[in-house]
């Protein structure tokens, strides 16, 4: 089972977990990741963060990443929620929640989905700082995090 949502509104981590576990008593492990807006990035204060995306591609990209995770690990349920629009520090940006029988699968698949989302899902962040607006630069470390999953599969 897979739930993918792109939305302006906030989400509730507890409600997402409750929806997932109510449906399936085979679930023994749920690993989650939530990304938050920080008030400082690359040394500058951040007052708002605006998320733009490429709607026609976003759902396709996220669906592909989740399908790949389901092919690699034994998963029971996956939920991905990504917000778009204007956010503020401490706001929630993204949720990846993965349910499985045992924790190893849940942890690995959750981190895999985040690493691929960070490099392959068409979202872009623009920060508003005291020095003006600026587009967030992609991080080399995200490319590395994503590439290690390729290495693992090849070896």
């Amino acid at each position, binding site marked *: 089972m897979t739930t993918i949502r792109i939305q302006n509104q906030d989400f509730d981590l507890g409600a997402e977990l409750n929806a997932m576990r109510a449906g399936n008593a085979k679930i023994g492990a749920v690993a989650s990741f939530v990304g938050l807006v920080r008030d400082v990035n690359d040394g500058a204060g951040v007052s708002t963060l605006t998320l733009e995306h490429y709607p026609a591609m976003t759902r396709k990209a996220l669906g592909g990443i989740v399908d790949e995770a389901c092919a690699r690990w034994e998963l029971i349920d996956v939920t991905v929620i990504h917000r778009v629009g204007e956010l503020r520090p401490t706001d929630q940006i993204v949720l990846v929640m993965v349910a499985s029988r045992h924790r190893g699968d849940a942890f690995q698949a959750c981190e895999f989905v985040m690493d691929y989302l960070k490099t392959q899902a*068409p*979202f*872009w962040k623009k920060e508003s700082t005291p020095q003006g607006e600026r587009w967030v630069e992609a991080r080399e470390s995200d490319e590395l995090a994503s590439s290690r999953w390729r290495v693992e599969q090849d070896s």
Partner: protein
Amino acid sequence: MMVSVLYFASLRELFGLENEQLVLPVPADVSALIAALRARGGAWSDALGTDRRWRVAVNQELATMDTKLNVGDEVAIFPPVTGG
């Protein structure tokens, strides 16, 4: 051969353009499209120079320079993604 080209994020702002229809000689691939855009000079040759980082998707899937283009394709050009 006509294709749609979409621009996102910093590239959209830099070019002052969200999308356009572009006519390319057949056969064409992504590198031919990029070459045509670079030929415009200014921000185009600057942002799409080989030393700058950008990504391209064809019909909503990440593509490479040698990905073939067909009539009616939707090509998107954007900076490396920064979501999550």
